[in-house]
């Protein structure tokens, strides 16, 4: 069975500071990896995805993530956050050949001025 672990349930940072949201996964087969964001009172929106190729993937709103197969990680980073980045972030995987997404528990990012 596959699983996703987001190591931090809450991450508070100051505006314009860098942030890293951690995600580790477990799977015996190859996976596709995703980060979704949920802004207050909205649905989930795809931030970025890793399907194959370059291990560093860039997404919307200045976010990027690096796929590390040896460490089974897919951490999300942004060099300088804004108040508007306040949201809950979800890491998810999908195994090749399967359709369903397996999600982590979510990380709530709070930006302080």
């Amino acid at each position, binding site marked *: 069975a596959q699983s996703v672990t987001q190591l931090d349930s809450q991450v508070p940072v100051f505006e314009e500071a860098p942030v890293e949201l951690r995600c580790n996964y477990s799977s015996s087969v190859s996976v*596709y990896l995703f980060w979704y964001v949920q802004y207050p009172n909205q649905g989930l929106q795809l931030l970025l995805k890793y*399907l194959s190729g370059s291990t560093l993937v860039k997404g919307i709103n200045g976010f990027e993530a690096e796929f590390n197969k040896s460490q089974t990680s897919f951490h999300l980073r942004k060099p300088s956050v804004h108040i508007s980045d306040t949201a809950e972030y979800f890491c998810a995987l999908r195994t090749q050949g399967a*359709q369903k*997404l397996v*999600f982590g528990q979510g990380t709530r990012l709070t930006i302080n001025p």
Partner: protein
Amino acid sequence: EAGVTQFPSHSVIEKGQTVTLRCDPISGHDNLYWYRRVMGKEIKFLLHFVKESKQDESGMPNNRFLAERTGGTYSTLKVQPAELEDSGVYFCASSPGWRGAPSSYEQYFGPGTRLTVT
């Protein structure tokens, strides 16, 4: 292009009552998924439709939950009778049919229906 829509946005019902949630996927998307997030837990898969057929219903918690997808368009998820542990946010997502490109893997999510069973 309209996104995935869900109705209602909130529902408060008493234990033992019936509730029906509706999802309208993006037009032309063959795949439709239901997920649920119980308070404080991760988002969990419930089931997957391909057009009007149930492809995978391994995540359905028990037989109090019934999902249908009429004519391969909108879908409903009925909970009958509702129990306290059914409270949570129910998300619907859709994706295009397989067209040989990994980009078709992206699932587009609706805003969710918050269900509270009292």
